């Protein structure tokens, strides 16, 4: 059984993010790169499946990122993933969701897979669209927002989170899922994992290795970022002066009703 986890490398979530007005891309220099926090849950889900399945199940990390991302990929290996594929090429710069999914699908097909596990979203571009697009390019069932997953032979059973509950679904393998936080806290890498990570393979992959039929990178992008704007500053909180607790409670209830929260 071969599980592939897709991880994105993102600027440190605590750092101030800046967009370069000319290229309309995120400025990544001078900011520490980390594993997309949502992808730590994807790694956790894959490792849980591996722990349960035991011998013969491997977890491969696949990422499309600059070569400098190697060190961050090692963290995923230290957590317990077996090996990694780092897809890196200047020609990939400026890829949109379509291009990213297209190139990643080719890389994943090349390495082979029974199950692909994605995070639900990145913390930088946050489109949350990649898992769906990737399933499409891979030509396999895609179950997004999974909170619980089980493998029975060649069938996958999952619970998909919805706004007001969850759906029980199943599909045959090979398949793709994206997992939510509910899958469980991501484990810490152990020291043994850290010391062992340097012995694990991070296989480099370039566009030449993929021999894609369609252009990717900024040339192949189907979307164009036209403008970027700061979100409006949060409005000041409303202060209500009341005579007593009863009136205060009523004011709060009225406010919540007005917002259709109750």
């Amino acid at each position: 059984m071969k599980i592939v986890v897709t991880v994105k490398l993102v600027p440190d979530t605590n750092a101030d993010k800046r967009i370069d007005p000319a290229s309309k891309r995120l400025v990544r220099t001078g900011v520490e790169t980390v594993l997309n926090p949502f992808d730590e849950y994807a790694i956790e889900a894959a490792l849980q499946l591996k722990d349960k399945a035991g011998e013969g199940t491997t977890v491969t990390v696949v990422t499309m990122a600059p070569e400098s991302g190697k060190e961050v990929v090692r963290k995923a290996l230290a957590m317990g993933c077996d090996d990694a594929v780092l897809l890196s090429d200047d020609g990939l710069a400026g890829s949109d969701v379509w291009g990213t999914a297209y190139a990643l699908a080719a890389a994943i097909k090349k390495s082979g897979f029974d199950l692909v596990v994605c995070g639900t979203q990145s913390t930088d571009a946050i489109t949350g669209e990649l898992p769906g697009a990737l399933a499409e390019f891979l030509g396999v069932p895609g179950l997004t927002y999974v909170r619980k997953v089980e493998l029975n032979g060649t069938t996958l059973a999952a619970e998909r989170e919805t706004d007001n509950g969850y759906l029980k679904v199943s599909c045959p393998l090979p398949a793709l899922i994206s997992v939510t936080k509910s899958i469980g806290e991501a484990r810490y890498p152990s020291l043994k994992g850290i010391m062992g990570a340097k012995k694990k393979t991070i296989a480099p992959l370039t566009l030449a290795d993929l021999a894609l039929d369609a252009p990717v990178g900024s040339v192949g992008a189907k979307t164009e970022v036209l403008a970027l704007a700061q979100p409006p500053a949060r409005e000041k909180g409303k202060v209500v002066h009341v005579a007593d607790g009863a009136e205060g409670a009523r004011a709060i209830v009225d406010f919540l009703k007005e917002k259709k929260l109750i």
Partner: protein
Amino acid sequence: MDFHFTDEQKAIQSLCREFARDEVKPRAEEMDASAAFPYDLVKKMAALGLMGLPFPEEYGGSGADTVSYALAVMEIARADASTAITLAAHVSLGSMPFYLFGTEAQKQKYLVPLARGEMLWGFGLTEPQAGSDAGGTRTRAELRDGRWTVNGTKAFITNSGTDITGGTTITAITGHDERGRPEISNLAVEQATPGFTRAKTYRKMGWRASDTRELSFADAEVPEDALLGRRGDGLKQFLQILDGGRISVAALSVGLAMGAFDESLAYAQARHQFGKPISKFQAIQFKLADMLCQIEHAKLMVLKAAWEKDRGEDFVMSASLAKLFSGEMSHRVVNEAVQIHGGYGFMDEYPVSRMYRDQKINEIGEGTNEIQRLVICRLMGL
């Protein structure tokens, strides 16, 4: 010269930082108040491989270097000194003698479970009447019919009485040379030994959640092969252990000061007086600059000593200098940290008040400031 950490060192540092922030820090105040030993945190540190950090994998350790060890202790101490000393004493004092002086059988029996963090072990040098003058040991062990009979008392022994402590390695007089000078040897005494008892934990000013006890030996009998290392080398071996131990206590001091600095920086920006954050007053800014400067100074000293040790060079002078400077540095830094907090810094619910109490032992344990100066002067040839 290269100031870059290796990938592993960076990864271990960031793992410990995350672990300390998420698992240790939230517990620190309650642990200090209840003085309850953190069994769960020891278990978690064991699962991460921290309890056997520098020992080879074949003995259940993680095979990391001394620089990583110093970084790990710093990060844990940044969150809580009690947890940090539990780790540091376990690695540098409890386990290290087996690694350095143990026979293969002793390593298998003791070092393996210690490195896995399944068991703790004490290092029993200090006695009520023999502190700085560690050679003044009065505990005796007599070899009769293939068994040692131990009599005496040890004071202030860390990790010696927890539910998972396996025993304590002690110094004891095992004879006298032809000139009548005592011959001191090390014996590994298991917890279940009849005649070996532990008092309740001391009530302490700081390091309150760490386990520190007085040990008594009344005709406590241990087998002949409880001897650790060479007969007569006991004091020499323990002093060698303390050379390495200084790196970890120094790292603990640096970590504690880093924690006090973190708190102070955040507090100074949040606390308003005279219509602005107190961090806008130059008097407070300069304190913060001085704190950071001193922390950086001490940190470099600790890392240099650790680096020398990793390279197999003589690190004794560097470790002593680092221990002395870091201990006194942490005193100045926690003092300013409380000062920056004003009256709130005197309140239990602010971490700096605990750090202020936790700091003092850094200038006493594993060689007082005065003894550290003596060691340095001796190394200078004075």
